[in-house]
């Protein structure tokens, strides 16, 4: 299980102008100082949009779990 730590995480999609699986890496987790999720765009739940000391579990090219370090259990390995 690879764990990396950085300050902020964002995702960008640009309005301008994938498949997953094959050879996908093993599940891993990212720890970040601040996760800017942009989840629930129409929601005012700020705690969900910005997660401090967040953990993101990634498996098979998808986000498997998301939350604070205390919420998300990172499997060993």
């Amino acid at each position, binding site marked *: 299980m690879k764990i*990396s730590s*950085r*300050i*902020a*995480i*964002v*995702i*960008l*999609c*640009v*309005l*301008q*102008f*994938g*498949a*997953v699986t*094959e050879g*996908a*890496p093993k599940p891993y987790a*990212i720890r*970040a100082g601040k*996760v*800017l*999720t*942009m*989840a*629930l*765009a129409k929601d005012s739940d700020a705690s969900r*949009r910005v997660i401090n000391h967040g953990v*993101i579990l*990634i*498996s*098979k*090219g*998808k*986000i*498997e*779990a*998301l939350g604070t370090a205390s919420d998300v259990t990172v499997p060993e390995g």
Partner: protein
Amino acid sequence: MNPASPTSDSSGVSLVSISRAIKPNDEGFRQVLRSGVTSVLLAPETGGLISGNAALIKLTSDRTKDMIVKEYAAVKFSMLGSSAKMTQVWQARDFLERAKEYAGKWDQYERAFEEYERRRQYEKDKDENEDKEPNEEDALKEPDRPRRDTNLELMRGLFKRKMPAIVHAGRADEILNTLKVFRNEYNLDVIILGGGDGFRVTDELRKYNVGVAIGPDILRYEKGKAINNAEMLTRSRLRVALHTSVTSGTQYLPMNAAYAVRYGMDEDNAFRAVTIYPAELLHVDDRIGSIDEGKDADLVILSGEPFDFRSRVEKVIVNGRVVFEREE
């Protein structure tokens, strides 16, 4: 030649998928990826009434087919100059009318064919159960198949609202013409591209809840006073997507967002304008546009706040793979 000329036969013009033009290992794509942009909508340059089909891709792979998120993500039109040339409006109506008629015929045919197949199977099962020979006279008539037109076929998704029409319009009257024809008359899902005068027609845009893709420059000047178009539109509760192009430098998108914030745009809205709003406008928010459980693992790791010019892109992850890592 105007590809959408109402007097020409559309079969003489090919609106093939733009995805065929993708070069997966293009250095330009890598440069954009390094700036923290994970997905782009690839569309043809504006020209004539119809520019063509736009494909949504991820900048991720050595193979085109693995890059495509949505091959037919939108159709790009232009209403630029439509205020001076009323023929532009007539041409748009004429083309959409033909496309709608085509879509209607094929929808009707496909429904009829489905029913025909269902009944044919039913009759077959019945004959077999009753151990009867099929009766030629009672045979069901297969519905007549309409003529296939590859170009109009591309437009069918517009009328089912499976994809938006991205319409290039800058001046207020061009935006109003677009709303009237594309949104009001043909009930299409519309994104205004450019939208320089958007702040002048916020009520009309709001009435139809139409998204606006603006940029790279979001500032307008009136009587020497700077107006932040992006801020004005978001304040009117409109979904704004920030837009850059190959010409203006797609890789500068994060800086353009920072620029919008510097001139008064709310940080949250600016961030949405490069993430969840474009994803929503392109109907792909179930996969990308935000970090959430079940969504694609497309992440950008920054060294600091996203709108701080000093922040560096440390790592870019697409579909769970690290596709860029900054070297020390």
